[in-house]
């Protein structure tokens, strides 16, 4: 967990160095090896997002036409609840997006996605997370993470995905 954070900071620091090099007086030497990072900022929220996605687990998966939480899903949600209630994360709000695979009608899958996301939210609230911190959306079958039409892809696309809402971007 710590290693990941440090590694990220290191990578960003080296990019900052490159950015600094490109502002030296020798303007006729143009270095185009790396894309210019204008303001490399590692804010707390970026670290938290990475932590959620890479270590806590931001996705839970559902069975076909199901919304009940499997043992695996519950384990992920327990980690998410602990993460949400860590003191350094108490300022963040979260959004759970419910998703369905393509094997259903558009309108039913919108309802199913909402039901899945609400099931995940209820579980988190049951573990002590304030319901006011979690909003729910459904994308139905509109936002597959795996574009293929295979059972494996469908299994991935039946998910609830938790994201941290950036307080500056959150207008709702």
């Amino acid at each position, binding site marked *: 967990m710590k290693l990941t954070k440090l590694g990220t900071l290191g990578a960003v620091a080296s990019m900052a160095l490159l950015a600094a090099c490109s502002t030296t007086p020798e303007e006729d030497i143009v270095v185009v090896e790396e894309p210019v990072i204008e303001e490399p900022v590692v804010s707390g929220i970026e670290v938290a997002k990475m932590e959620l996605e890479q270590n806590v687990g931001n996705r839970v998966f559902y069975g076909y036409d199901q*919304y009940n939480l499997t043992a695996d899903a519950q384990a992920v949600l327990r980690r998410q609840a602990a993460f949400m209630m860590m003191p350094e994360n108490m300022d963040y709000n979260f*959004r759970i997006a419910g998703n369905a695979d*393509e*094997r*259903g*009608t*558009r*309108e*039913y899958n*919108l*309802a*199913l996605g*909402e*039901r899945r*996301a*609400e*099931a995940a939210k*209820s579980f988190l609230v049951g573990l002590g997370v304030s319901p006011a911190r979690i*909003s*729910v*959306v*459904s*994308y*139905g079958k*509109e*936002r*597959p*993470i*795996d*574009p*293929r*039409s*295979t059972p494996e892809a469908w299994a991935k696309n039946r998910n609830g995905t938790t994201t941290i*809402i950036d307080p500056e*971007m*959150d*207008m*709702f």
Partner: protein
Amino acid sequence: MLRQIALAMTLAFAPVMASAQVEIDVTRGRTDPMPIAIPDYVSETDADLGGEISGVIETDLRNSGLLAPIGEEAFIENITNINVTPRFADWRVIGARVLLAGEVVDLGDGRVQINTRLWDVVGNQQVASVAYKTPRENWRRAAHKVSDFVYTQLTGEAGYFDSRLVYVGETGPKTDRKKQLVIMDQDGYNPQTLTQGLPYNVLTPRFSPNEQEITYLALFEDRPAKVYLFNIETGVQREVGDFPGMTFAPRFTPDGDRLLVSFARNGNSDVAYLDPISGRLQRLTSNPAIDVSPSMSPRGDKIAFASDRGGSQQVYVMNADGSDQRRITFGQGTYGTPVWSPRGDLIAFTRQHKGKFYIGVVAPDGSGERLLTESYLVEGPTWSPNGRVLAFHREEYPGGPVRLFAIDLTGQNLRRIQTPTEASDPAWSPRLN
């Protein structure tokens, strides 16, 4: 935004009712299409326009599956004056049953008059005639009206050629699709994107009964999806109501005064009326199951919807006040997207069973279920204004492009509707005024 150009109709010739001799029964499957000859419309000043008008009519009638236009290379008589009785034998000998002879006259004020006579070349008589005056640039609509005239004369039923489709134009990869509202003529001409640059994807558009408004679902990234209204004249779009949760699956009631929607609250979706002016919801179902996709009968007395309250998703019908909810489909698999025929006698649906999707129809009492077409994915049927054709979207094979198709209620005449991009969620307009 889109001008509705009024179409002046004059009965220059008194219409004569069709004799019983030349008639097409649209309820029969596998009827051999009736051979029809459609020479280029006669024009002294604008020969190109004459050919274009007959071309539009020919395409309409061929697509109907009920008529088989004969290639002009077979024609013997050259029609130069439509007010002279044709040489019937010349048309009979090339296999024609009916002849559509027309002319386009430049009225000198920017308008044209399109005169048409429909002849029964076996009965040696005129079936009927009709004339339309229209601004020249509006000739295509007038041609569709001639197609409707022919359809009506031969079948006894209203046509559907002078109508439009809205649909969702799809671009981009499946993981990041852009979905926009597009409107076009029924035959695929004049596609126009109506929702350029809006911060959401458009899903499930449906026409209002007066075809001036469209309701659809706006799918956002960062907040629940919402029902929207779009005015075709003004291009103004607005969200309906102000709710915390998702409202979706909108459809107008047949009087156009209200919307029927689903709304989701705490993991449960129910069916409700949504008043477009006050934004108020009036709940119709309160079942812990998923209740979605309401569609009202044309008489306004019943509502069909889909629910998984019985375990699998099936079609239910209830009274307009929500009472007497009863299941009408009992087959294997799941049933969704019920949509009431404009004639009131059938409900079309999407059925899913064993890895395939089907479009089918069933009577409102649950009898007479019939599957019309199947594919890897077919979804979201919409009725032609005369209730004889269904349009829907289809993905022929896993991962294949999504396209619009139409099929006759008989299950015959499956055909693709051309669109400039991939396309889904078609909705047929009512007959245009």
